[in-house]
């Protein structure tokens, strides 16, 4: 993983890499993240910048899928921000109302920005979660694919 990690010139990780891990953290489960956090070296602490808070995101869509924008309805979202003693600030955003999940996502986002941790966490936390998510997606897709249908149009009066 280390050699594929894109870095900006100032040494910080590039946006695409961070977007990817944030997405994986958001899609993971709270229990999963808690378990990984406990496996890390004990004594890792962070302080709350913004307590976990549940609120709403208005989901937007487009007429015809690609035309004029409209507001479809809201989704519940929980967010949290933390900072590590070493200064990194992490943000967690998850759908739903699980505050622990948002807090863990923020903590991992912060720690992942610390270059002593980035490669290790990408390999040992983000990659396995991503793999599990992909696997479950593929399993679902295989089931859905079994319902692919070929219809034949009958000529009217064919069975006469």
């Amino acid at each position, binding site marked *: 993983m280390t050699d594929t990690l894109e870095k900006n010139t100032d040494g910080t990780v590039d946006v695409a890499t961070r977007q990817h891990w944030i997405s994986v953290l958001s899609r993971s489960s709270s229990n999963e993240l808690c378990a990984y956090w406990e496996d890390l070296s004990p004594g890792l602490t962070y302080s709350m910048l913004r307590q976990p808070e549940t609120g709403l995101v208005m989901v937007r869509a487009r007429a015809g899928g*690609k035309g004029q924008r409209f507001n479809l309805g809201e989704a519940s979202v929980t967010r949290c921000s933390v900072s590590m003693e070493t200064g990194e600030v992490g943000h967690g955003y998850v759908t739903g109302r699980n505050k622990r999940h948002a807090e863990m996502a923020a903590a991992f986002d912060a720690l992942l920005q610390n270059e002593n941790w980035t490669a290790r966490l990408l390999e040992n936390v983000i990659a396995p979660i991503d793999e599990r998510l992909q696997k479950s997606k593929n399993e679902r897709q295989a089931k859905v694919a079994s319902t692919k249908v070929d219809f034949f149009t009958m000529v009217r009066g064919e069975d006469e």
Partner: protein
Amino acid sequence: MYVAVKGGEKAIANAHKLLAEDRRGCPDVDELQTRQISEQLGLGVSRIMAEGSLYDKDLCALAMKQARGDMIEAIFLIRAYRTTLPRFSYSVPVDTSKMDIDRRISATFKDLPGGQILGPTFDYTHRLIDFTLEADEQVPKANTSEAGLDDDMPRVLDNLLKGEGLIQSEAVVEDEDSQAVGDLTREPLEFPANRDVRLQNLARGDEGFVLALGYSTQRGYARSHAFVGEIRFGKASLVIEPEELGFAIDIGDIELTECETVNQFQGSKTEPPQFTRGYGLAFGQNERKAISMALVDRALRARELGEDIVAAVQDEEFVLSHSDNIQSTGFVEHIKLPHYVDFQSELELVRRMRRDLEEKNISEKQAAE
């Protein structure tokens, strides 16, 4: 004038206790867990999310339990709950063309890039009661297909009709970001209503109401002979752009059902004959709603297409003012609440009118004699 009543606290508290006991039902029967509702009554949960206008499966399952399965009561609970939460932001518009497909069909084109995917559907079932479900029989495992699904599932109408210019385009204005998007949770409904407001209104509108109006178009009230160009159901990414990050993040999937209809259009002074479009989109698996919404959306485009407004379904004031089942139920059901003073004055009025009439008759009779 409505005059409120007071008192009755004890009876009201007792009525609510009785309600709680009846909600639980016979204690010999296992209590329903909200997880069972969200997992096993998913389409009911979808409806509550769509019309409650809040995507949150667990919460909507809980609302269904609390409401004893009364969908509109559950939707009411969700609408009330959302008012207690802060609004963080608006999402980036969901990209339904990229959704993970669970179902994708077209009634207009047989052969599609990506294929027709039936997915988990009631279509082609025989609508016979399945008594094995009562007997806790093992559920047959779903089959799998090694072939998988195509990565690319292009939007049917754009892909197959747009090339020839046979269908109206869905226009995006150039300086889109400078234009406000109507939001019924922030501003009251005003007429004439733009399509953004109409679509939001229909998306959270009552399924039965929207269904009936859609049906009316098919029966000939503002007929536009609709075909289903495409229905898709699946998971789309919810993307937001938090200020503190300054870039977009994908925070999870939401299930959506989308329907695009293809409708007839004779052409007008400015437009050649072409197909027109109706659009339906709903949270969760909600196909009936998405199709109905598309039919009504198309009918409500009468003004924009220069069509004569001849039917209820084209009358945006009629449709949009009566689609919300929480407003409807609030006003319809409020007449069961005490109106004693109100009614007393009506009673007094009718008595007086009858008395006046009687006196008039007597005096006329006397005059005649």
